[in-house]
C-alpha cells in the first residue's frame, strides 16, 4: 500500500494518480473534516479532471485523519505543499513537524519519499538524523522531484516525462514497492544523490524562468520598436535549439509562487556559498516590470482621462484552470486601481472585497463590464473568447480592451469599434509627453 501524508494540491493529485495506476492508497491528513469531504468525493481544490478521476478510482483510495494507519504502508510520501511568505521564501516548519509524525508512524523497512518543495541540503540533513536514531535506522529516505503545474497537474502526474529520485546512495536499487509504483507510470527513472535531485528541480524552473524572461524582454522590445512578437514566434519554434514547447508566449511576469520560491531559494543558496546569482535579480526585476503592463496601459488610456473611471477585470486567478490567487497580476492590478471602480469576474477564483472598497466581484463576464471605461483581461480563461462582442459593446461605456494574452480576436474587436491592446504588438498608447 502507498501512503500519502499531507493532502494539499500536491498530495491530492499525487495520491489520486497513484490510485489510478491500480495501487491501494492511504491518504492521511490531520484535518478530519477534509478527510470526510474527500471520502465523499468533495475536493477542496480545483484541478481539471481530478474529481472525475477520484470518482473512477475511489475504491482504491482511503482518506484518513489517523496518522497511525500509515504503518500499513510500504511507501510513505510526505506530500505537503510548502507554504511561502510574502517574500516567496518557503516556510518548512510544518514540513519538519510532519516529517517527525511520519517517522514515528512508519513501519520498519518503509520507504519514505519526500515530495514536498525543499531546498538542496534538506533531505541529507534528515538522512543523517535517520542514521543516528536507532528506531529509524530501518527506514530509507528518498526525495522525488515534483513539477506540479496547477491547471495541468493531472496530465503531468499521470504522464510524467521522467522520475528524478534523490537517494542516499544512487548505486543501490530502489525498494521494490517504490520501484513498482514508479514503473507503473512507464517513464525513465533517474536515481541520483539527494543534492543533485534537489538542484534538478531548481534547474528545471530556472530554465523556464529564463525562457519566460527572454520572451517578455523581447515582447517589450517589439511593443516599442513596432515589431509583432506573434510574427516572430513560429520561426523560433522551428529552431531545434528553442523548440515547439518553449515558453514563447509573453505574459505578465512570474506568478503562482513556485517559480518565485525557487528564485528566492537560488538567491539564498548563491549568497550562502558565494556564487553569482545576479541573473536572478534581473529576472525578478523583469517579472515585476511586466506584471504592471496592464496598469501602465490603463494609466495612459483611461485613468488619467476620467475623473472616476470604472475598470472591468476578467480573471483573478494567476492563470486559467486554477482558483489560486498567489502572486496574481490581477490582484496586484486591483490593489493599484484604488482611484477607480473595479468590477471583476473569474470563473473559479474568489477575491474578498474586504479592505477593497473600490472592488466588487460579480457573477458573469458581461456584468463586470457594465458601464466600464475599459476592460482588462488579466487571466486568459478560454470562456472569455466566447463572449459576444456586440453585447460587450452595449455594456461598456468606453472602448478600450487591454487583452495582454490576445484572448479576443483583435480584428473582430476593432470591427466592433474597440481599441484592442495586446502584449508583444506595437503599442500605440497615447503618450503623456510629446
Amino acid at each position, binding site marked *: 500500500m502507498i501512503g500519502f501524508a499531507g493532502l494539499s494540491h500536491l498530495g491530492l493529485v499525487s495520491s489520486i494518480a497513484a490510485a489510478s495506476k491500480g495501487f491501494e492508497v492511504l491518504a492521511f491528513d490531520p484535518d478530519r473534516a477534509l478527510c470526510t469531504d474527500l471520502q465523499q468525493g468533495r475536493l477542496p481544490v480545483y484541478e481539471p479532471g481530478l474529481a472525475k478521476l477520484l470518482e473512477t478510482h475511489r475504491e482504491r483510495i482511503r482518506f484518513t485523519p489517523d496518522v497511525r494507519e500509515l504503518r500499513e504502508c510500504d511507501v510513505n510520501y510526505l506530500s505537503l505543499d510548502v507554504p511561502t511568505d510574502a517574500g516567496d521564501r518557503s516556510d518548512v516548519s510544518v514540513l519538519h513537524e510532519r516529517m517527525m509524525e511520519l517517522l514515528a508512524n512508519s513501519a520498519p523497512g518503509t520507504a519514505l519519499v519526500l515530495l514536498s518543495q525543499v531546498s538542496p541540503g534538506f533531505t541529507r540533513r534528515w538522512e543523517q538524523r535517520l542514521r543516528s536514531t536507532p528506531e529509524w535506522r530501518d527506514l530509507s529516505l528518498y526525495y522525488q522531484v515534483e513539477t506540479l503545474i496547477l491547471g495541468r497537474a493531472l496530465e503531468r502526474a499521470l504522464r510524467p516525462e521522467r522520475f528524478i529520485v534523490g537517494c542516499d546512495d544512487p548505486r543501490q536499487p530502489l525498494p521494490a514497492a517504490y520501484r513498482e509504483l514508479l514503473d507503473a507510470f512507464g517513464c525513465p527513472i533517474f536515481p541520483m544523490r539527494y543534492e543533485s535531485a534537489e538542484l534538478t528541480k531548481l534547474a528545471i524552473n530556472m530554465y523556464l524562468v529564463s525562457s519566460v524572461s527572454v520572451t517578455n524582454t523581447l515582447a517589450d522590445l517589439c511593443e516599442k520598436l513596432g515589431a509583432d512578437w506573434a510574427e516572430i514566434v513560429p520561426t523560433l519554434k522551428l529552431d531545434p535549439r528553442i523548440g515547439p514547447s518553449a515558453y514563447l508566449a509573453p505574459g505578465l511576469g512570474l506568478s503562482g509562487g513556485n517559480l518565485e520560491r525557487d528564485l528566492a531559494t537560488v538567491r539564498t543558496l548563491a549568497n550562502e556559498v558565494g556564487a553569482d546569482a545576479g541573473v536572478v535579480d534581473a529576472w525578478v526585476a523583469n517579472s515585476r516590470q511586466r506584471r*504592471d503592463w496592464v*496598469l501602465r496601459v490603463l494609466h495612459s488610456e483611461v485613468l488619467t482621462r476620467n475623473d472616476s473611471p470604472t475598470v472591468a477585470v476578467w480573471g483573478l486567478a494567476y492563470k486559467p484552470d486554477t482558483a489560486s490567487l498567489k502572486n496574481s497580476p490581477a490582484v496586484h492590478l486591483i490593489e493599484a486601481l484604488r*482611484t477607480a471602480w473595479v468590477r471583476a469576474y473569474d470563473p473559479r477564483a474568489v477575491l474578498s472585497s474586504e479592505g477593497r472598497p473600490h472592488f466588487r466581484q460579480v457573477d458573469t463576464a458581461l456584468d463586470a463590464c457594465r458601464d466600464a471605461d475599459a476592460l482588462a483581461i488579466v487571466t486568459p480563461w478560454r470562456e472569455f473568447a466566447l463572449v459576444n462582442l456586440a453585447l460587450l459593446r452595449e455594456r461598456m461605456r468606453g472602448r478600450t480592451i487591454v487583452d495582454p494574452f490576445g484572448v479576443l480576436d483583435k480584428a473582430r474587436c476593432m470591427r466592433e469599434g474597440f481599441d484592442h491592446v495586446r502584449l508583444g504588438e506595437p503599442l500605440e498608447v497615447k*503618450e503623456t*509627453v*510629446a
Partner: protein
Amino acid sequence: MIRHLQPAPALRGRVVVLGASGFVGRDLMDHLSSLGVETLGLSSRNVNLLEASSVERLQSLLRKDDTLVFASAITPDRGRDTRALMRNLSMGEHVAAVLEKTPLAHVAYISSDAVYADDAGLLRETTPTAPDTLYGLMHVTRERMLALAAQKSQTPFLVLRPVALYGPADTHNSYGPNRFLRSARGDGKIRLFGDGEEKRDHVYIRDFTRLLGQCLLRRSIGTLNVAAGRAVSFAVLARTITKLCERPVCIDCQERNAPITHRHFEISALLQAFPSFAFTPLHEALAMTAGQLAAAA
C-alpha cells in the same frame, strides 16, 4: 516604492520648506499656498544650514506637527567638486541632527536621479544606487543620514528622486529644456552634443510639486523616482522648442565629448502610488515655460 500612511489626502499641520527660495522650494510654496496649506519657507537668509548654529535655530522654529521638506542643496552649476560635496554633506549633517532630536509629522527629502549610474539601463526604485558624480554621491549619503535620523525620532520619511526638472524659474541652466529655451530666445541657437541622440526623461516643475504635494497630503513614506516614464532625445526636445519660438532657431550640432547614454524610467511604483496622476505632456509644458519666460522678459 512608497506607502501612504494617510488613506485620504489631508494635512493638519504646517509645511516647513528648507530651500524655499530655490527652484523647487519656490514652486512648492506656491502650489501648497494654492491648496490652502500653511507654509513656512526657510532659505539660507533665515537659517544657514552650512553653519552649526543652524541646528539650534531650526529646532526652535519647528513644531511637533510640522511636515519638513528638505529641498536645499548646492547644485552642480554652483560646484561639482569636493568642496561642494562637503558643504552639501555639512547641510545634511545639520538637518539630520535636528531630525534626530525632533520628532515631526513627516519629512520629505528631495534627492535626485543622479544617485543612479549613467549606464544603469531601465531605472526603477530597486536599481542599486551607484552615482557617477559627487553630486549623486552627496544625495545617496544625505538620504542615508536623514533616514537614520528619522528612524531615531520615529518620523515618517520620504525620499523623492526626480529626473531633470524644468520650468521658467529654473536657474541651473543645465543641458536640456531650460538651456535650450533660453538660448533659443537669446541668440536663436540650440547647441546639441553630437546629434542629440541621448534620451532623457524630463519633468515639468509644477508636475513635480503637485506630486510632492500629494505625497505630503498622504504622508507617504519610502523612496520614489519621479519621472514621466517616457524619455525623449535631446534632438526631439530641441525640435519641439524651435516650433515654439516665433523667430527661426538654428540647431547647432557640436562635437560630442562623452559617449551616448540613455536614461529610461520604469514608473510602475509611481502609477501604483498615484494611479490617476497625469504628467503634463512635454509640448504643453514646454509651451507654458516658453510663454512664462517671454512674459517675464
